[in-house]
């Protein structure tokens, strides 16, 4: 069953069309990476899912219930982590979670039990000082704890890792990997390596439209454009070699860079042997022959660029 479903969503601010006919669905217990450039409409979409913004057209369903603008009941199924979560600086993490619990309607006992569990999950169990002095990473971790407090069916994270250093990013991704066992996660980002690490499926948004959607592995394979890196024993032969390689019909591009020759082709496993045959025929010494893994970054740049 789809926990989140968007149908033909439209939104513009004045004359600026931000979201144009956006539709996608997120299945239960999956991690959906919502990818796009800055300003592509990721945050706008998330705010519409939360009922903070009114779509001009289209429908959103959370857990089968329609989202209405303002005071939406569907928010009880959702945990939300804003891009830069802000808290009341004069409270301690436990007090903040208690406030959240009171607002959601959990009993104090349940709130307490879950707070202890969640704070230890995000590594803040021994932090009793007030939130005022927290680092960004700590705020982000507390943000995840508060978002999971009411055991939501859907956890929405708006660029959870963008503002963090590499260690902070790793921590957040680790926590999200744990959280995926109890909920469905939708997270937006422009850091593609994060998506590759934890997402099951992705949607790429550009200019308000979804231009690519599906399981991460499928997308990588579908858009397959392999790259072979060649390092020659005698670099002076590179230029001549590239001219010859470019004559093959399956070769899309061949460039010489400092690190070696990069050859882009449609299928490295199938056509690679022809390149190797050429190398042997021409008696060119090779130090290294490597098929580079296709990355989401390449796919992203290709579809967005």
């Amino acid at each position, binding site marked *: 069953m789809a926990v989140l479903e968007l149908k033909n969503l439209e939104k513009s601010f004045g004359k600026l069309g931000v979201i144009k006919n956006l539709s996608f669905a997120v299945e239960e217990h999956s991690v959906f990476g919502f990818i796009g450039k800055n300003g592509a409409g990721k945050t706008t979409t998330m*705010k519409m899912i*939360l009922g*903070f*913004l009114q779509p001009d057209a289209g429908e959103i369903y959370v857990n089968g219930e329609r989202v209405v603008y*303002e*005071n939406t*009941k569907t*928010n*009880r199924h*959702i*945990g*939300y982590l*804003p891009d*830069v*979560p*802000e*808290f*009341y600086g*004069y*409270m301690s993490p436990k*007090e903040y979670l208690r*406030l*959240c619990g*009171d*607002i*959601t*309607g959990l009993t104090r006992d349940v709130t307490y039990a879950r707070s202890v569990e969640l704070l230890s999950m995000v590594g803040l169990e021994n932090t009793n000082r007030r939130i005022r002095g927290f680092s960004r990473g700590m705020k982000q971790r507390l*943000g995840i704890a*508060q978002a999971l407090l*009411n055991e939501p069916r859907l956890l929405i994270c708006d660029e959870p890792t963008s503002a963090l250093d590499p260690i902070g990013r790793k921590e957040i991704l680790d926590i999200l990997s744990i959280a995926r066992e109890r909920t469905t996660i939708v997270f937006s980002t422009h850091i593609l390596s994060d998506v590759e690490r934890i997402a099951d499926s992705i949607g790429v948004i550009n200019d308000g439209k979804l231009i690519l959607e599906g399981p991460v592995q499928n997308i990588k394979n579908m858009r397959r454009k392999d790259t072979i890196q060649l390092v020659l024993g005698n670099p002076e032969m590179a230029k001549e070699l590239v001219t010859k390689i470019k004559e093959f019909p399956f070769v899309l591009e061949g460039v010489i860079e400092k690190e070696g020759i990069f050859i882009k082709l449609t299928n490295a496993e199938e056509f690679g042997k022809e390149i190797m045959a050429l190398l042997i025929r021409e008696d060119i010494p090779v130090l290294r022959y490597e098929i580079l893994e296709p990355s989401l970054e390449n796919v992203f740049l290709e579809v967005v660029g």
Partner: protein
Amino acid sequence: MRGYLAFTNKEFVEQIRTYRFLILLSVFFIFGLMSPLLAKLLPEILSGMDLQGMVIVIPEATAMDAYAQFFKNITQMGIIVILLIFGGVISNELTKGTLINILAKGLGRQMVILAKYTSMLVLWTLALVLASLVNQGYTMLLFDTSNISNLLFSIFCLWLFGAFLLSLIILSSVLTGGNFGGLILTVVVLGGLLILDLFPKLEKINPIYLSSHNLEFLTGLLKPSDAYLPVMVTVLLLTGNILSSIFLFSSKKL
């Protein structure tokens, strides 16, 4: 209801931990203490000054002078303190983004307005009661208060004016953006009301009436029945402010 109580509780914690509670109560405590004292000491201070032969005849201070000081302090300095303390009550949370988490948890937006207004009203009431009690005690100690009439009603008028001011701060805060927008708009509206107060015909449909005629009730120059119209107008305006704040805040983009 649950959300309202939780959020009101949070507001009280905020007022205490951000020292607003302490500041407001101490300032009003000082007003209560200072007003009768100043009334008593002012003639002595003046007589101790070298006036180079000028002769100033000062009638002996009475309880009325003490109350005059009291109402002047609260309607001038007191209101400035209230404005400074509560000016950013909603815009602060909006610009910082602290409300987002809470609203995403399903707290109704009307509850935010109501909870904030409740906590502000309670704090204002506490401060005014404290100032009035201290002022009353000291005045009774220093002066003869036998010919004072309608003191409670006069203080009620001042309280109601304050309650109106707080609703105006909330509405202005919802209407404008930025940290000081609410503060500035409130001051502008207050200025407008003060200008309107210059026209005697409009005087009675202006909340300013409740903060500018307090002494006349004490001397018996005005009777409570004279203030019924302004009281009603103010209650209506106050309710209107809160209702429009709720309405506008509900459709505000976050």
